[in-house]
């Protein structure tokens, strides 16, 4: 059981802390001009963060207790190919579709 006091303390602090992280540069720097070297690095934020988020989710998913599940890895690969070849919607639909499709095949074997 989660203690009610603990829950509210954590939720409020996490809310404030998360807001401050989001506010940080945008809030405090405002319209200031950033140096060229920093702008150069900032152009790579998205493509540096997302693959690093996905990799452990695919290789060691919490849902399986950290056990590598090849169906998840394969469906992730299919989503990536569809994302490159087709579109964002293509990636989402074929990723989830491949995942459930492979699960269905697995259950038949």
């Amino acid at each position, binding site marked *: 059981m*989660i203690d009610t006091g*603990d*829950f509210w303390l*954590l*939720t*409020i*602090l*996490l*809310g404030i802390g*998360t*807001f401050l*992280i*989001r*506010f*940080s*540069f*945008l*809030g405090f*720097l*405002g*319209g200031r001009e*950033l140096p060229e*070297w920093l702008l*150069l*690095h*900032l*152009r*790579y*934020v*998205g*493509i*540096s*963060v*997302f*693959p*690093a988020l*996905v*990799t*452990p*989710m*695919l*290789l*060691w*998913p*919490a*849902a399986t207790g950290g056990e590598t599940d090849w169906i*998840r890895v394969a*469906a*992730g690969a299919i*989503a*990536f190919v569809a*994302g*490159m070849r087709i*579109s*964002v919607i293509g990636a*989402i*639909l074929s*990723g*989830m579709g491949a*995942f459930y499709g492979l699960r269905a095949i697995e259950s038949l074997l």
Partner: protein
Amino acid sequence: MTDPGLSRGQPGRAFWRGYRDCAPFTLIVVPFSMLFGVVARDAGLDVLQTMSMAVLVIAGASQFTALALLQDQAPVLVALAAALVVNLRMAMYSAALVPHLGHAPLGMRALMAYLMVDQAFAVAVRTYEDEPQMSRAEKVGYYMGCMMLICPFWYAFTLVGALVGNLIPASLELDFAAPVCFIALSAPLLRSAAHMVAACVSVAAAILFHALPWNLGLFAAALTAMVAGAQTELWLRRRRAAA
């Protein structure tokens, strides 16, 4: 023609474009937020607690982390630190948005900070880079359009998950929506050789740094990949200049 940065352009139209461009991600936000509602109720939270967390934090991965650690009876500060580290990536988003949105008034910047979620950040920055002629007001409008689509879905389907969670079988494995989401976000960002390098380094570094404590692996991997991407771009530029 006046300075495009000062002209107002059409922020209203930009808002609806952002709204449309983010639409595919509702397919992800719906199952993922429902899953949070289900997991939170399973952990013993009531509907008000579940919704409070979703509204105050709006950051799925950190909400799951905090909840799991509380369930394991971890001290509040430990759970807080672990969940905040998951959100550290958003400091990078915040910095990356400065050149596009930093001119907005303080209250607007605070609202934009509160609403900052992965999908909308990725879609907005991609559009800003593709269309440097967008005016400042249009950039703000576009950003708000992205966020105004994602956030209401996030709240509404957390509520649905919290209310009807027991009807959703665990065998649905809704958690798989999260990796699919970030893959769908990554693919369109692979726009140059330097971006490819950044992505490959990001994957390799995530594996290498996986054992780092307190979820710091993600942050370390992202920083490494950013430097790799930027250095590759510089190197390619020098090589082109020499040729």
